[in-house]
């Protein structure tokens, strides 16, 4: 029931995209979410420590490999794995400091190709976040670009300049929305815009001002774009913003003052809300009714000190919240759709960032 709209969304996306590319590797597997048998958890690791890891957790047996990528490939993932995306039968991992996109066969964990993400000078472009659309995977990088990867050839086939230090990326209706954080330019006031890039021309069409230091971007089934604006930790506070699909107007959603990472499932945004000194909570926002469903998703009293990331299993509705102290291995907790703790994976890795369901 709850997943009905989500299925509808998925179908509509697929209908829009299915015929676009004969080489589109999206197979039958991805038509419907199905019951997950295994979790893959990406840990960023600590910057400069080469200790980004991929954890494999078998849900039925409980078997865990805390360094799965290395076990399979006889080499570490690298330094600071920021984002992981499943597209078709493959996984794409953006490894920031190493400056690579690791393309992995999802079933076996084997690396198929390591795509270098380097500037002309040879330094890392610092890839951050990933999104897929129409047979392509798009990567934001801190060198102020979005890179397009062809998922058939696994080669870079285009780059477009956007705003400063792009973070979040979401794609819908032939438009790429990129959150320009300006995070590296914190000393001089960050960026404050979302770039809109046309998929066909692969040119930036415009920038929409959304607020200081935007982070994550997601789009609901109606085409409304949601942005978590982080603020500058000083005079400019954060806020949750909507770019209206019809008018293009930017609206602040009241009641969500310190949004961080969020995901969207079943047209609901699961938003980490909190900051240092203020307790973290997960706010659930219904993007269709445009109402806050709950300001505190966790209902059984479980406390999470610093929430680092959130993922939702589209099939079961289970919500995965990771906790970090940025130094030692963090904890992954699985909550059911009613916000009750199902199980905990302690010390899963440093800065656990993304969970993918296989």
């Amino acid at each position: 029931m709850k997943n009905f709209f989500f299925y509808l969304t998925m179908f509509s996306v697929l209908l829009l995209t299915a015929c676009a590319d004969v080489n589109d590797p999206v197979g039958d597997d991805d038509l419907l979410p199905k019951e997950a048998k295994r979790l893959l958890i990406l840990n960023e690791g600590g910057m400069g420590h080469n200790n980004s890891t991929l954890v494999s957790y078998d849900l039925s047996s409980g078997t865990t490999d805390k360094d799965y990528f290395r076990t399979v490939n006889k080499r570490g993932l690298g330094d600071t794995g920021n984002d992981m995306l499943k597209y078709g039968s493959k996984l794409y991992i953006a490894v920031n400091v190493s400056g690579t996109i690791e393309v992995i066969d999802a079933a076996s964990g084997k690396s198929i190709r390591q795509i270098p993400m380097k500037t002309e000078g040879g330094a890392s472009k610092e890839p951050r976040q990933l999104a897929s659309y129409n047979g392509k995977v798009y990567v934001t990088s801190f060198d102020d670009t979005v890179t397009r990867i062809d998922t058939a050839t696994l080669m870079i086939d285009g780059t477009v300049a956007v705003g400063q230090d792009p973070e979040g990326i979401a794609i819908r209706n032939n438009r790429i929305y990129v959150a320009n954080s300006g995070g590296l330019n914190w000393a001089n006031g960050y960026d404050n815009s979302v770039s809109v890039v046309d998929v066909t021309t692969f040119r930036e069409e415009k920038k929409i001002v959304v607020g200081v230091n935007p982070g994550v971007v997601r789009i609901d089934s109606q085409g409304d774009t949601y942005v978590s604006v982080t603020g500058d930790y000083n005079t400019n506070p954060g806020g949750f913003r909507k770019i209206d699909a019809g008018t293009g107007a930017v609206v602040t959603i009241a009641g969500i003052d310190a949004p961080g990472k969020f995901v969207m499932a079943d047209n609901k945004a699961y938003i980490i809300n909190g900051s240092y000194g203020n307790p973290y909570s997960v706010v659930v926002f219904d993007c269709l009714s445009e109402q806050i469903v709950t300001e505190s998703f966790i209902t059984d009293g479980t406390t999470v000190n610093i929430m680092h990331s959130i993922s939702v299993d589209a099939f079961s509705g289970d919500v995965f919240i990771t906790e970090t102290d940025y130094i030692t291995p963090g904890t992954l907790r699985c909550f059911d759709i009613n916000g009750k703790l199902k199980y905990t994976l302690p010390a899963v890795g440093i800065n656990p960032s993304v969970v993918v369901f296989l």
Partner: protein
Amino acid sequence: MKVLRLRVFLLLMVEAAAGNRLVAQTVSDSLLLPEVVITERYADREIRSTAPLHILSGKTIRNLQALQLSDAVKHFPGVTVKDYGGIGGLKTVSVRSLGAGHTAVNYNGIAVTDVQTGQIDIGRFSLDNVENITLYNGQNDQIFMPARAFALASALNIQSVEPLFTDDEKVNGKAAVKGGSFGLFNPSFLMNLKLSDKLTGSFSGEWMSAGGAYPYLLHYGEAGTDSTSTERRVNSDVKNLRLETALQACLSERSKGSVRFYYYQSERGLPGATIYYNTANFSSQRLWDRNFFTQGHFEHTFSRQWAVQAHGKYNRSYLRYLDPTWLGATGKIEDVFTQQETYTSLSALYRAFERLSFSAAADLTAAAMQSDRERFATPTRLTFQSVIAAKWVSEQFLTTASLLYTQTVESARYGEPAENRNKMSPYISASFKPSVDLDLRLRAFYKNSFRLPTFNDLYYPLVGMRQLLPEDASQFNAGVTFNSTAGEVIPLVTVTADAYHNRIKNKIVAYPTGNLHQWTMMNFGLVTVNGLDISLESALNITGTVHLLFGATYTFQRAMDKTDPGKSTYNHQLPYTPRHSGSTRASLETVWFNIAYTLLWSGERFSNAYNSDVYRLSGYSDHSISVAKSLPTPLGVMQLSVEALNLTGRNYEIVRNYPMPGRSYRMKLSINF
């Protein structure tokens, strides 16, 4: 020969100053003039001390294949040197797991300070011109010291060679050149001048440059089956220049003074971690250092009862950091930091009775720091330190006690200054020799000390916390020392063993506050350390002209996080702290040549506060060997030495992702004129 000359010279000086022969030297030596102890065998001081102290003499240092101070310091028990590899790589020292900020580094009696970071890069001191280095746990038994010398938990003293002249000699010195693998070029020069009967001067200069592009094997995992690739360290070059001049005056039988000018500059690349798949271009960061100081010392002995001394120092330092590949809008990060420090100290010694003496000292330090960043706090700190100390000595019993008072006055041009602090730091120590005939001593000390938050801790933009408390360290030590001779063949056996318990409270740590880009400094956590240090030193006369000198240390450290029983790291070993580590050195001296061998080894460590397999760093051992030959020439004694370092060639890591150079070679030619 030189050592003998030194002894004779100093004994003469002491006799002159004291006005009578020192019969019971072991009792009264340090009551008269602190310098007297140089005339003793180093081992005597090590075993008589109430708190552990370890000395590496110039001769021992020359047998250690040591280029930088950090290389030699690794041979002290209880010491962990964080070495980022290569000549230019940062090297900081932590004694008994207390952290770098708790160890003073003193250069010729006056502290080398860095109020910005609180830690001294001990890689910058070369050993070319060093007479000895001493590590004090707790503090020195000599109570006639500046107040600042009582302040920290431990101290590392570097003593330069003092000018000595035979008979009618007016000029002597040394010229040397060292070269070696990875482009090392290190010429140095020292000249001593006897300007008059009362005045001597010295000048020394040194250049050191190295390309530092050493090859290493990059491991993509700790498992033996994980893949590897051969890489080369980039941006690891270094260029250093040191210029130094000193004047020593023996003004009368009772007065002496010295003044020293020191200049150091360096430019180096910061190679950064060996990032997988990005080794070639990960870092282009550069660092420029400039440091100038002048320091002086004057001492006057009024009578057998009274002596006073004054110390003073003025220090300027400049640091420029550049990251030219920053992806932010400016395209680079560039920071300039400057510091100044003015230091004065007055101390007095009162020898009230034959066995009991007292001292008092008052120090004033004014430190300031500037940055080219807009609205940088631009802080200053006035530190007033005063101490009273007492010492009681008999043939079998030695005890010292001191109480240090510290008051700080903080100010800042922009924003709130840090809070002023005032603290008392007590110290007590004793040693006891149960039997008159047996050279065996029991000893113990307790010290409570602290390190002040550094200017980075307090004022670093976005990170600094102005309410930080000092980091508190308590040390308890109990040990035994033993010294013996076994006839002509084994003239010396010295053993020291000390067990200790340390507690560090209010640890100053960087703590994240919500995301990876936002950290703040906090007083957080409690660490306890239980440890054991053992050292052994021995000499063996194989024949009349063939001597073997042997030394070894062993350290056990259990340094535990005791912050929060609910945390996953509770009771885990601190990162980069081996439970077992040690060193060995042996040198064979013959009339033809000398051979020296050294070994440094460490058990496994963890790179993370959470001790699991993923963060395990395997142990290592580093073997080095050198051969030296002396030749008399008409110009003076020439010495040629060849060193082969890290013989196994393994690129072991002291800090994860910072490999040490593999096998390398150095050659040194020097002439004493």
